[in-house]
């Protein structure tokens, strides 16, 4: 667990330049210094390197000063404000220091402005080293040099610059293909998993979905005017590596409709390798719907009608089992964190949707538009779509976006007898018509 002495101290995460290029002397940072030891790469050492030799090293000298002050007093000292890029209303998180000396002057004047620029990453977070270096160079020129790959919503966060440089930096990177992400009451930056690019579980073209959805709402992203934030996340399968169910307003998750594929020879190998007891205890008995049964010849019986595509057995026996061929996506609406009504999960609004043709994709975009329009018109201020659904009820929301009810939307049918059902026959007929139609 201890850090080893580096083989090549000049090319190591613990490296600090011998000479300091910045003009402003470092503040004492005894507390932060304690975060330089230990084996994990230290962000403090990183900050110090910037304070030694970054293009805006004096800014980082003061930044370290303010941060140390926060560590000492256990309080934060930033406040927001308004900074924007010409033509856009969002995408910047402006920060101005609140830490003033007795004269009301900033205690750490060089970092008194320290804005973050949120930039959308490529779908799937793929980079060439060339492009990484290019982005880094641009930021070193116009900002602190410090980049977070990535923020929790998926943005590349270029952390720390002045109001002026915000524009300069944006102009530069925008010219070679990068655009701002979301901040404020708007469509936010989306996320998609590595998926089809390198994952056998993928049931969708995550990148295409991600780009199509977000790029369709660029106006809603760049000029914030929605009731509140709206996030898209795309996972290629129910493992949901993008945490989309809980952390996005509209989750698009790959799945399949036909039978999973079983390579019985590989199953037998797996059983031979791991033993029957392991297989029963760790696979068969962990299926949530008891859809698996191990035959006496060590082949696997799958009750595909009752398989809920949870992925568990496929995850564990990745060579023997795989997703089916009739792939598509499930849509869930309304996930978010805790404010106002407590955490919500997204809930199913479209159990299955094919995404083969361009028309299929078009339908997805249209539905997203319906959702955002209806929500934008009917939400209270600062109300996420999950809260709107909770307030007006799923059924009313579905009516608003022209979707039919479906039993896949519920985990339990109605338990409360408090309901008025005058129009039962009418509703029952709708269902019957849909079944025959």
């Amino acid at each position, binding site marked *: *667990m201890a*850090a080893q002495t*580096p083989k*090549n101290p000049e*090319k*190591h995460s613990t490296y600090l330049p011998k000479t300091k290029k910045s003009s402003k002397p470092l503040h004492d940072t005894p507390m932060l210094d*304690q975060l330089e*030891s*230990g084996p*994990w790469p230290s*962000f403090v050492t990183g900050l110090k390197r910037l304070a030694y030799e970054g293009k805006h090293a004096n800014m980082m000298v003061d930044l370290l000063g303010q*941060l140390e002050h926060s*560590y000492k007093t*256990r*309080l*934060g000292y930033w406040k*927001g404000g308004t900074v924007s890029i*010409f033509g856009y209303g969002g995408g910047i998180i402006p920060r101005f220091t609140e830490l003033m000396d007795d004269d009301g002057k900033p205690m750490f004047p060089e970092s008194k402005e320290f804005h973050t620029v949120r930039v*959308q990453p*490529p*779908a799937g977070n*793929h980079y*060439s*080293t060339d492009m990484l270096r290019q982005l880094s160079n641009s930021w070193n020129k116009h900002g602190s*040099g410090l980049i977070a790959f990535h923020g*929790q919503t*998926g943005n590349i966060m270029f*952390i720390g610059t002045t109001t002026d440089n915000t524009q300069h930096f*944006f*102009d530069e990177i925008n010219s070679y*293909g990068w*655009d*701002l992400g979301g901040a404020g009451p708007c469509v936010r930056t*989306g996320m998609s998993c*590595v998926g089809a*690019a*390198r*994952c056998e579980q993928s049931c969708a073209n995550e990148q295409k979905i*991600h*780009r199509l959805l*977000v*790029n369709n709402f*660029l106006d809603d992203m*760049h000029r914030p005017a929605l009731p509140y934030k709206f996030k898209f996340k795309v996972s290629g399968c*129910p*493992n*949901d590596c993008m945490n*989309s169910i*809980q952390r996005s307003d509209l989750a698009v998750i790959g799945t399949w409709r036909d039978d999973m594929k079983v390579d019985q020879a590989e199953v037998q190998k797996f059983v031979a390798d791991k033993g029957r007891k*392991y297989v029963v205890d*760790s696979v068969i008995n*962990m299926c949530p719907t008891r859809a698996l049964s191990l035959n006496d010849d060590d082949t696997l019986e799958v009750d595909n009608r009752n398989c809920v595509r*949870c992925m*568990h057995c496929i995850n*564990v026996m990745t*060579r023997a089992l*795989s997703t089916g061929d009739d792939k598509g996506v499930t849509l869930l609406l309304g996930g978010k*964190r805790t404010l106002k009504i407590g955490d919500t*999960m997204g809930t199913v609004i479209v159990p299955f949707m094919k995404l083969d043709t361009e028309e299929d994709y078009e339908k997805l975009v249209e539905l997203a538009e319906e959702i955002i329009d209806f929500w934008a018109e009917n939400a209270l201020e600062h109300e996420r779509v999950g809260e709107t659904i909770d307030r007006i009820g799923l059924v009313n929301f579905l009516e608003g976006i022209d979707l039919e009810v479906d039993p896949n939307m519920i*985990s339990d049918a109605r338990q409360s007898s408090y309901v008025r059902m005058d129009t039962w026959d009418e509703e029952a007929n709708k269902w019957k018509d849909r079944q025959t139609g």
Partner: protein
Amino acid sequence: MSEQPRFPTESGVPDGFQYMHPAYIKNFGNWAYHDRPRPGVLHHVAKSGDEVWTVRVGTQRQLGPYEINLLCDIIDQYADGYVRFTIRSNMEVSVTDEAKVQPLIDAFEDAGYPVGGTGNSLTMISHTQGWLHCDIPGTDASGVVKALMDELYDEFRSEDMPNRVHMTTSCCQINCGGQGDIAINVQHTKPPKINHDLVANVCERPSVVARCPVAAIRPAIVNGKPSLEVDEKKCICCGACFPPCPPMQINDPEHSKLAIWVGGKHSNARSKPMFHKLVAAGIPNNPPRWPEVTEVVKNILHTYKADAKNWERIGDWIERIGWPRFFELTELPFTKFHIDNWTGARKSLNASTHIRF
């Protein structure tokens, strides 16, 4: 330099294919299976027979030019010049030649960057901005995470857990880090202190009133100025009033504590996705190394590792062994605060005789 403003090109999400490893492009959507030859290395086999080895490397998330160049140099020299970042700020560097794997690993480790975070390891803790940048933080997520990852370094580099462990750390109760197998969050314990002089200028009073989840805030005239008043009996110290109204200072060096929540899970594997649940609170916010947090986290991880069955995530494990056993095994105190009392709390009570003795 032209003084004319430049109109942005609204190019949106860049196309990932521009920067993608050629083997990914070639086999896009046609992968067959994967395995893990060792911790930190994924081996994906395509239906075409193509193979790709991916080395996963932990980072400190915030990277400067030095780190970027250092890492890019390695990737250029030992790999193919392509990299992707995971949702947890790990780098993934792929090669199509198995022989390149070990030298690549060695180069990263020699540079002080750990290889690991795959499979049933504890992967990098996802975290948030903290005192470095946010305007409402109660603590510094980067610092907490650095302190923890130092202690849990070996768990990142091995795959000895019953299943993946996904941790998050957030710097205020808003919890931008999200649900986690183990989530470390700020929990305030005293109502906001109001700087009445500033409220009138800085806060839109009706919207602050509307933000409070328990309707504890009411408009009031204080010292002759329009301000706000908090019913301290009602206030649950959630901090939701602070972002829209900074004069309602909720952060407190002493009374903003840390809390630990466990069992959050987004995946649909086996159980449906679950929210994380409170297990420990009142933990001092103790920079620079937050030893009390580390202690509780290590205790939980250790207990999970020892007691859970194969493939049980922390939430699955607790569902099987029950909360009483969780508190027994971890020796964490169980208090009245562990019993929910928010809307719908009734459903979290034990409405059965299902009891383990």
